[in-house]
C-alpha cells in the first residue's frame, strides 16, 4: 500500500482540526475522505468513508486509473484497471475496473470490439453488478 502511494502520488495528510481551511478548499465535509487531485488542485477522484485495506487499495488503484484516463493516458489507465480486476477480484471495485478497462482500451484503439468483449466478460464475472448492466448495451 505505502509503496504504491509513494511511487504514484505526492501524499498529503491533513488533520481536520489542524487544517480546517483545507476542508472548504477541497469541498470535504466528512472524514475519512481521500482525494486524488492534479497539479492545479483539480479533483480527479474521491473516496469517502472507511474501507478495509484490500478495498481501499482497490479504490486507490481505480482512482489512479481514472487519473490516467483523465490525462488521456489510456494504455496506462487500462493497465491499472486490469490490475484491480486480476489482483483484487473480490473487491467491490473490481466490476467497475473491468468496465473502465474496456472503455480505456476502446479509447486507446478506437476499436469497438473492446466494448463488446467487455460486455461478454461480464457474462462470466460480476454479473449482478451495476457495471454489468451498464456494459450490457455493448453486446
Amino acid at each position, binding site marked *: 500500500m505505502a509503496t504504491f502511494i509513494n511511487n504514484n502520488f*505526492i501524499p498529503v495528510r491533513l488533520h481536520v482540526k489542524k487544517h480546517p481551511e483545507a476542508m472548504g478548499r477541497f469541498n470535504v465535509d466528512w472524514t475519512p475522505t481521500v482525494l*486524488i487531485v492534479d497539479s492545479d488542485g483539480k479533483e480527479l477522484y474521491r473516496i469517502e468513508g472507511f474501507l478495509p485495506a484490500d478495498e481501499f487499495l482497490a479504490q486507490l488503484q481505480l482512482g*489512479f486509473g481514472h487519473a490516467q484516463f483523465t490525462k488521456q493516458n489510456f494504455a496506462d489507465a487500462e493497465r491499472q484497471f486490469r490490475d484491480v480486476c486480476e489482483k483484487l477480484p473480490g473487491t467491490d471495485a473490481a466490476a467497475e475496473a473491468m468496465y473502465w478497462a474496456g472503455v480505456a482500451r476502446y479509447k486507446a484503439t478506437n476499436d469497438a470490439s473492446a466494448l463488446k468483449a467487455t460486455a461478454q466478460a461480464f457474462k462470466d464475472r460480476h454479473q449482478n453488478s451495476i457495471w454489468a448492466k451498464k456494459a450490457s448495451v455493448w453486446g
Partner: protein
Amino acid sequence: MAAEVATQWTEDVDQALKESKQVKKSLLLDFTAAPM
C-alpha cells in the same frame, strides 16, 4: 525480513502542488480526524 515501507506524508498542500508540477505526479490528499 523486509523492512516495512512508510508512506511519506507531508502537510503542506501548496508545496505539494508545486512539487506535483515538477515530478508530474498527482496529489493524494488524506483528510482525517484520527489522532496523528
